[in-house]
C-alpha cells in the first residue's frame, strides 16, 4: 500500500503530532519501507487462527475495588508544568 502525503499528515494529526515540511519526505520514506516489510504478515499461514491479544490467555483479573489513600499528594503535582490551587492548569478551553 502506498502512503500518500495527506494520509501521513492525517495520521500525525490523530496522534497529536506535528510534522515539519522538511521532515515529511523522510517520514514518508521510512513509513513506506517499514509497511512494505510489515506486509509479509499478509503471507503468513493464519487461515482459521484466532487472534491472540496478550501473551497469555488469562483475561479479566479481578480484585476488590477498595479506596487506598495516596499519602504524598504534593509529589503528584510537583511534575506539573503549570498548576494553581492544587490543580493542573491548562489554557482556556471554551
Amino acid at each position, binding site marked *: 500500500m502506498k502512503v500518500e502525503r495527506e494520509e501521513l499528515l492525517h495520521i500525525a494529526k490523530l496522534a497529536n*503530532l506535528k510534522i515539519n515540511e522538511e521532515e515529511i519526505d523522510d517520514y514518508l520514506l521510512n*513509513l513506506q519501507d517499514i*509497511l512494505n516489510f510489515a506486509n509479509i504478515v499478509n503471507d503468513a499461514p493464519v487461515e482459521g487462527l484466532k487472534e491472540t491479544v496478550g501473551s497469555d490467555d488469562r483475561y479479566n483479573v479481578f480484585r476488590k475495588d477498595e479506596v487506598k489513600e495516596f499519602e504524598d499528594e504534593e509529589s503528584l503535582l510537583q511534575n506539573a*508544568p503549570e498548576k494553581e490551587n492544587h490543580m*493542573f492548569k491548562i489554557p482556556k478551553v471554551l
Partner: protein
Amino acid sequence: MNITELTVHELKEKLDKKELTITEITKAYVDRINEKEKDVQSFVTTLTDEAIEKSKKIEEKLKNNENLGKYAGIPIGIKDNMCTKGIKTTCSSRMLENFISPYDGTVVNRVINEENMIDLGKLNMDEFAMGSSTETSYFKKTKNPWDLRKVPGGSSGGSAAAVAANMVPWALGSDTGGSIRQPASLCGVVGLKPTYGLVSRYGLVAFASSLDQIGPITKDVRDAAMLLSIIAGHDEKDTTSANIPKKDYTKALKNDVNGLKIGVPKEFFGEGINEEVKESINKAIEKYKELGAIVEETSLDVAEYALATYYIIACAEASSNLGRFDGIRYGYRTKNFTDLQEIYENSRSEGFGAEVKRRIILGTYVLSSGYYDAYYKKAQQVRTLVKNEFAKNLSKYDVLLTPTSPTTAFKLGEKSNNPLEMYLADICTVSVNIAGLPGLSIPCGVDKSGMPIGMQLIGKAFDEETILNAGYTFEQAYKFREKYKPDFKGGNN
C-alpha cells in the same frame, strides 16, 4: 583483589566471610564509575554520593543486627525507565527530562527498599526503549566497553555496558523485543528476559504492555538466577502478573545437561546471520553434545513474520501508551502555544525524538480505520501462529538454541539513519516476546575483532530453571569470563 571484577555471588561470599565490607564494595564501584564513565557514558543519573552515604548507614544497621535482606548493601544499576521515588526517571527522553516519580515501581521497591541494595544510578537507554543501539537516547550515546567506537546494543545499552565495564555488579533492564538479550550479547554479559507475567511491570514506563518484561543483566548465570529470585513474584498492582509461588532459581543450577533435549531451529541460521556468529554458535552446540545434551535440528519458520508482527503490535501499543504524554500533568510542555490543542501537539512534537514519533505514527496508522484488518488484526493472528510454532517445538525439546543477535556490535552511527535495518537487529529475539516465553542470552565466543557473541536459550513458559541450568552448565565448561575481557579500545586516550 579487584572488587569490581567479582560477581555478586563472589561479593556476597566475601561479605559473609567478612573479607570485605559494604562500604569497601560501594567505594570500589564509585571509584570505577569515576574512572570509566567518561568513556562509556552509561548513566543518565549517577548516585555516587548517595550510594556512599547509604552504604555507611547499612553497615551501621547490620552491626546492630537489623534484618535488612539477603543482598543488603550490594550495589545495583537501574534502567532509566523504572520509576524511582525522588530520583529522576527520564526514559532517556526530553519528554521526561525532569520527571521525578512520586513512587517506586514494584521491582525497584523489592531491590532497593526490601533488599536494601544500593542504587548506583539510572542507566541510559534508547528513548522510551525504542531502539537497538541506545543511540536514540536524548542525552548521550553509550559506548561498548569492548570497543568504544561501537554501540552497546539496546535498548538496555546503558545497563549492559555498565555491567560489562564493571561500573555496577549487576543491573535491571527491560525487554520488549530483545532489549535485555541483544545488548547483553553485544557487551559479553548475561541477560535474561523472564516469561511474560513473571516479573511485575508496575512502575515500568510502558512501551508495549503485552510484550514488556523486566529482567536481570549480570556477569554470570548464577547472578541472573539470584536477581530473578528477588524480582519475580506476584503483584496485585499488575493485572498481568502471574500468581505463582516465589522460587529460588539458583537451586536449578545443576551443572548437568546430560539428556537435555535441545532443538536448533534452522531458520535462525539464514542469510542475515553473520558467519562468525554462526560458527561460534555451532561450536557451542558441539560443546553441549560433549556435555551429554541431545541436540537436533528443528524448524521454526516464524522469524520474519514475528519481526513484522512485532513492529505492528509494539508500535500500536506504544501509540496508545504514549498518548498520556500531553504536557499537562507531567513531562515536557512547549513554550509555544495559544490553545490546548497546541499544547498537546507542540509538547509532543518537541518532547519526543524522531524514532519515538516514527513508531507512534506507524502505530496510529496500523490502528486507523481501513488498515486495522490488514495490519493489526493480521498481526494478532500471526501472534497465535508464532505461539503455536513455539509450543510445537517446546513439546519436543526442553530448550531451543539460537544466536541472540545476527551480528556482533556495529559502529556508532552505522544504522541510525536506516530504521528498517536497525529493526532487523531484533530478528532473533522478538519472536520470544511475541510468544511470551523466557529467553536467556549468554556469551559463547568472540569474533575476529574481539567482539562478544551471544547465544540465546529459549524455554517453556515459567520454566526459567531449565534455561538457567543449560546456560550455567555451558558457562562452567566454556569459561568465557576467564578468556575474554573488555579492553576499552578505540577511545580518545
